[in-house]
C-alpha cells in the first residue's frame, strides 16, 4: 500500500525516503547519540505541528503543553507504574491527546493570532500547574531518574536507546504522512484554503480542526515521551513557551506545509544549539534567532520548501508531503486583507479566496 503509493510519487520520492531512513539509521554514528535522539524527537514534534500549521492553517503557540505534558505523564508511568517504557510513551501520547481535547475545543473557533494567543495561554496555565503541583511533578526539580528498562534489556547507553526510541519516531512520522494524505487531510487542506467554502460544502470546520488538533497533540506527545525516556527526566523546560516557540521555528525553517521540512529544521536547530553549548557560547538564542531570521528572509518557503520548489521548476518529481501542492503562507499570513469582503461570506477573508 505505502510502497505503491510511494511508487506513484516517483523515483525521486523513493530515493528521498531511502536517504531519509539511512540518515535516521546512521545518525548516532555520525553525531553524539543523545543529540541524535533529540533531533529525532524534535523532528516528529515539528511534523506534528506542521500538521496544524501547514495543513490546517492553525498556528499553535502552545504545543509545549503536549510535548511537556506527555513527558511528565510518560515519566510518571515509568517511575511509579513500573511499566516498560513503550507503554509509558503510549500513555503519555494518550494523555497529550486527552489534554488537547478541552484546549482544542475552546480554541479552534479562533484563527490567526487569536488562536496562537489562546493556545499559548493554555500552555502557560499547564506550566503553572506543573510548577505548583510539586508532589507529583517535582516542581523545579522535575522528574528525575526515569527508568528505561525493557524486559531486562539495558538501554542506558544512549547509543542503544536511540534505536529503541527511533521506531516510535518513525511510526509517528508515518502516521503524520498518512493523515496528510488521507481524505481527512484533503478536507483539512480545503479548510486551510477557505473555511467558509468548506462549511458551504457541509463540512463542520471546527470539529475537523479539533480532530486535527488532537491528532497533532498525540504525535507531539509521542515525541515528548521518547524525549523524556531518552533523557531520563522530565522538566519544566519542556512545558515552557520557549519549547512551543522552538518547534514553530523548526517548522518555519524547514518549510511550512512540507511535513518533512521540520525534520531538517530540527536537525539544524538542535545541532547548532549543541555546537554552541559545547563551545561554551553564552548567547545561543541570539545566534539561532539570527540564523532563523536570515533563512526566513532569504528563503520564504524554508529549506525543504525552497528545495522542493527548485526541483519542481526543473521538472523533477515532487516529493513533498503537501496534500495540495506547495503550501504558501497559512497561519498568520492569512490574516484578513480587507476589512469587509464585498458580498462574500462573512468571516471569509480575501486571503481565503482565489
Amino acid at each position, binding site marked *: *500500500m505505502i510502497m505503491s*503509493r510511494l511508487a506513484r510519487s516517483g523515483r525521486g520520492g523513493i530515493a528521498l525516503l531511502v536517504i531519509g531512513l539511512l540518515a535516521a539509521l546512521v545518525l548516532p554514528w555520525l553525531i553524539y547519540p543523545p543529540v541524535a535522539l533529540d533531533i529525532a524527537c524534535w523532528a516528529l514534534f515539528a511534523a506534528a505541528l506542521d500538521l496544524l500549521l501547514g495543513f490546517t492553517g492553525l498556528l499553535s503557540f502552545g504545543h509545549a503543553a503536549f510535548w511537556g505534558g506527555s513527558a511528565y505523564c510518560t515519566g510518571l508511568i515509568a517511575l511509579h507504574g513500573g511499566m516498560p517504557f513503550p507503554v509509558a510513551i503510549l500513555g503519555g501520547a494518550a494523555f497529550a491527546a486527552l489534554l488537547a481535547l478541552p484546549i482544542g475545543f475552546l480554541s479552534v473557533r479562533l484563527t490567526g493570532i487569536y488562536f496562537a494567543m489562546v493556545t499559548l495561554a493554555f500552555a502557560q496555565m499547564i506550566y503553572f500547574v506543573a510548577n505548583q503541583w510539586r508532589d507529583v511533578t517535582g516542581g523545579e526539580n522535575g522528574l528525575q531518574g526515569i527508568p528505561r528498562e525493557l524486559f531486562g534489556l539495558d538501554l542506558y547507553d544512549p547509543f542503544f536507546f536511540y534505536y529503541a526510541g527511533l521506531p516510535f519516531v518513525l511510526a509517528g512520522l508515518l502516521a503524520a504522512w*498518512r*493523515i496528510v*494524505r*488521507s*481524505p*481527512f*487531510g*484533503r*478536507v483539512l*487542506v*480545503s479548510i486551510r*484554503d*477557505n473555511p*467558509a*467554502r*468548506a*462549511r*458551504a*460544502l*457541509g*463540512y*463542520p*470546520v471546527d470539529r*475537523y480542526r479539533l*480532530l486535527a488538533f488532537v*491528532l497533532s497533540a498525540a504525535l507531539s506527545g509521542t515525541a515528548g515521551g521518547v524525549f523524556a525516556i531518552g533523557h531520563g527526566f522530565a522538566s519544566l523546560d519542556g512545558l515552557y513557551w520557549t519549547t512551543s516557540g522552538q518547534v514553530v521555528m523548526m517548522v518555519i525553517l524547514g518549510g511550512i506545509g512540507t511535513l518533512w521540512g521540520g525534520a531538517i529544521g530540527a536537525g539544524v536547530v538542535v545541532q547548532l544549539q549543541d555546537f554552541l553549548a559545547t563551545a561554551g557560547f553564552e548567547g545561543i538564542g541570539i545566534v539561532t534567532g539570527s540564523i532563523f531570521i536570515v533563512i526566513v528572509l532569504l528563503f520564504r518557503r524554508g529549506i525543504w520548501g525552497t528545495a522542493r520548489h527548485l526541483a519542481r521548476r526543473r521538472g523533477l518529481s515532487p516529493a513533498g508531503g*503537501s*496534500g*495540495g*501542492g*506547495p*503550501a504558501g503562507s497559512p497561519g498568520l499570513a492569512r490574516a484578513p486583507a480587507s476589512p469587509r*469582503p*464585498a*458580498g*462574500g*461570506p*462573512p*468571516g*471569509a477573508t480575501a486571503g*481565503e*479566496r*482565489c
Partner: protein
Amino acid sequence: MGGGPTGGRPGSGPVLRARGLVREFRGFRAVDGVDLDVAEGSVHALVGPNGAGKTTLFNLLTGFLKPTAGSVLLEGRRELAGRSPEAISRLGVARSFQITSLFAELTPHQHVELALAGPTGLGWRFWRSDRALARFAGRAAELLAQVGLAGHGDVPAGSLSYGRKRALELALALALDPKVLLLDEPTAGMGVEDVDRTIELVRGIRAGRTVVMVEHNMNVVASLADRVTVLQHGKVLIEGPYAEIRHDPRVITAYLGDSDAAR
C-alpha cells in the same frame, strides 16, 4: 399558506419561508424586515440595486450570518435561523458565492470530490489513503463536464480563468444535489456565450429543485425566473412574475431605471 408537515409535495407550500428577517451591522439595517416565500420547484430571482441587501439575505438563509430578528423555515417545519452553515448545507440548501470562493491549491476535480464526499463521512477517515476519494471520480467528471469544465479538472483551481471559476462554483453547488439552490450572481462577469450556457444549465438542473438566484442581468431573469422579488434598502419593494414587475414604476425608478431598463 404554509407547507404541511410533510412539505414534500411539489407545488405545495413554500419550500423556504422567511418572516421578518432583520440583520443589523452596527445599527445599519442591511436587511430590514424581509418576508419571502419561495415556492417549491420554482426559480425565484432576487434583484435590486447594489447594496440592497441581497447577499446579506443569502447569508441569513444559509447560516453564514445570524439574523438580528426573524425566522426562516425550510419546508414549513425546520427553523434554519441559528443553524450553522454546514448544518444548513446538510439539510439540502446549497449556495454559490458572489465572489468566487474556492480552494486555491486543490484541482477542480478534487473540489467536486470533496463536495460529493461530504455526506458519506469519508472525510473523517484519517487512516485511509486519499485514493479512497477516487470512488467519486466518475461522478465528479460528469459534473465538471456538465458545467463545461471537461479537460480542466486537473490544474490548481487558483490558476483557472474567471469564467471557469464561476463554472466550478456551479458544479460544487450541483454536487451537493440540493433541494434548494441559492446562486449569488452566477453570471456576473461572464461573456454572452457563458451566460447563455449558464441559463441552459440552470434550466437543466431545476427539475426537482428550487432555485433562488440573485441576478443583475435582466435577460437571465426574464428567461429563467418564475417569480421576482425586488429588494431595496433591505426591504421588499415588490414581488411578482417578471412580466408584472418589469413595468412597475417603482421598480423602474429603483433599479431598472439605472441600468438594464431597456430590457
